[in-house]
């Protein structure tokens, strides 16, 4: 019988690191160290106001990072996300400001256009068999061109529509966010309890009560702190609510559905996936469709944040920050390993570094070098843990 004797092991540390829940530990630790460092060396870092802007500032990168995680899981890469985000934002901006279309409709059209772009790139990768690196590198160049074409001579369009602006300027009423949080926590506890009972009833292996409690407590603690900090400044911006919903959705898709299993399987061992009857082509095309749509969403949030769509905003660091965030969050560049929630933590690491270095008066040169160091360390950890054989 597969008893849970192993899970009753006295060694609590081993118990925690062996559970699947532990993959967020490295990035969470990195984040805490970074926050402590900047909190101790600068006065302004540990304030509700600074965290509010830090989170808001990191949202665009986080959205793209959550999206690219899907493609990375599959063992592919998408270098065109920032350019496609720019195209999506530009389409939305033109439709709203030059054609007077209602903003929600313009957003839907922009997102669908970018899903189509994703499908085309996915087809080139899955059916023609061009490496995704090449397809999306071409996409990066081509869609930067498309973005410039749409934006016209000025290379920028201002966005003053109140719906679009509201995404990053409006916040949830404080009581509403507390009520939602209460429901989320109750749901989580209920879920953990039901799951435990069902499995125990069938005498199946159960996660040790210690781990379950720890997991629920940590998530509860983090979310209460988060809501409290945001509410003590302005509340939770709509953009962050969108990010959290998106991540929740993708967390469900990647961890709890046959499609999610297919993503991991193809990323882990394509030939094995093929032999058990998984369609590599469909899995790949859907993943690129998803990242297309997510890119557009990120682009729209960026347009809201800057009140404009400009070539510069989508051709700079955005791409590398997003991929960096996913990788810092522990998602493997080699496929088959990663988590969408960790991508948010990765985005916060990247965002916090930028924010903290700004506060300490660091130059752009310093910021670039520190970012490079973080990225290389993350990829090195990825490569080493892969060599060592899975265990981190």
């Amino acid at each position, binding site marked *: 019988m*597969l008893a849970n004797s192993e899970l009753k092991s006295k060694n609590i540390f081993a118990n925690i690191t062996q559970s699947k829940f532990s993959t967020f530990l490295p990035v969470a630790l990195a984040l805490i160290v970074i926050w402590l460092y900047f909190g101790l060396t600068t006065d302004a870092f540990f304030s509700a106001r600074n965290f509010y802007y830090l989170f808001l500032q990191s949202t665009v990168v986080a959205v793209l990072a959550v999206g690219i995680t899907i493609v990375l899981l599959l063992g592919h890469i998408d270098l065109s996300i920032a350019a496609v985000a720019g195209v999506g934002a530009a389409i939305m901006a033109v439709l709203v400001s030059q054609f007077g279309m209602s903003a929600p409709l313009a957003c839907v059209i922009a997102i669908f256009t970018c899903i189509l772009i994703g499908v085309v790139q996915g087809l080139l990768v899955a059916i023609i068999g061009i490496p995704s690196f090449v397809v999306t590198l071409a996409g990066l160049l081509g869609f930067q061109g498309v973005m410039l074409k749409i934006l016209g001579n000025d290379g920028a369009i201002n966005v003053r529509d109140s719906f679009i602006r509201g995404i990053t300027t409006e916040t949830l009423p404080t009581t509403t966010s507390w009520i939602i949080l209460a429901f989320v926590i109750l749901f989580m506890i209920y879920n953990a309890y039901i799951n435990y009972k069902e499995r125990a009833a069938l005498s199946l292996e159960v996660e040790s009560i210690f781990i379950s409690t720890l997991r629920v407590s940590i998530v509860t603690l983090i979310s209460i702190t988060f809501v409290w900090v945001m509410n003590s400044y302005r509340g939770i911006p709509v953009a962050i609510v969108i990010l959290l919903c998106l991540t929740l959705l993708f967390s469900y898709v990647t961890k709890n*559905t*046959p499609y999610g299993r297919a993503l*991991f399987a193809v990323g882990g061992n394509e030939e094995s996936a093929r*032999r*058990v009857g998984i369609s590599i082509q469909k899995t790949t095309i859907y993943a690129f469709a998803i990242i297309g749509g997510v890119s557009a969403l990120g682009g729209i949030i960026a347009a809201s944040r800057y009140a404009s769509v400009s070539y510069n905003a989508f051709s700079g660091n955005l791409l590398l920050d997003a991929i960096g965030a996913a990788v810092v969050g522990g998602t493997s560049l080699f496929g088959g390993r990663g988590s969408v929630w960790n991508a948010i933590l990765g985005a916060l690491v990247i965002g916090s570094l930028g924010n903290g270095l700004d506060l300490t008066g660091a130059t752009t040169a310093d910021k670039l070098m520190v970012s490079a160091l973080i990225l290389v360390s993350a990829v090195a950890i990825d490569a080493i843990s892969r060599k060592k054989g899975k265990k981190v």
Partner: protein
Amino acid sequence: MENMTNPHLQVCGINKSFGNVRALLDVDFSVRRGEVMALVGDNGAGKSTLMKVLAGAYSYDSGDFLIDGKNVTINSPTDAANQGIQIVYQDLALCDNLDVIDNLSLGHEPTKGGIYKLLPKSLRPLDMLKMTQKAHAAIEKLKVKTLRSTSLEVGVLSGGQKQAIAIARAVSSDSSVVLLDEPTAALGVSQTAQVLDIVSTLKKSGHSVVYISHNLKDIFQVADRITVMRLGEQIAIYETAKITPQELVVAMTSGVETDSQDKKDLADAC
């Protein structure tokens, strides 16, 4: 209960060419229920090709395919699976980054019904309870004693445990025939013993097992009968108890004198 001496799976007069290479020449082959049939022969004799024909991975040029004496059409691995034929490839085809439970259900995961039926199949929530139960049943059936937990990633398992998981996947679906292509080629002594144990268990549970190996010691340990192939032809079928390893080696390498052994008695009539 089926008659134990009638073949469960049988192919007759199978021919298969790859361009000019005639890989299978008029091959008759069969395996009974609760029997381990070994398939031996030199490199390039056509063993893997025959195995892939049986598993539906290769189509054949001519010949008959019978299950319990009835003609069937096998054109794809899915056809074969529907007839209860499962193959364990030499490279196992497992995903190291997924756990045992996931690997055992991969490609045909059970999902929750009810309101979730509104979602497309691949976006419905997995029925983790059913997946776990299925995995436990499969593992239990094979008596993989050393496996501590089904939520371990397959990548951290030993070669023998992985082999066991690959076999478990083949037998967890409603299979009656299990084809094993060199399952112990990469394994150590104790792990080989484990796989041979599994083969015996399968046999006891009434499965038809086809076992390809170059290791004569293993073959003499588990096989009931031995089919010898040479240059694309099936040249002899022996009862394991009635032949010595030396005689088998001679048959594999230099063929059989037609009168040296009355193989017709041991072959199932076509």
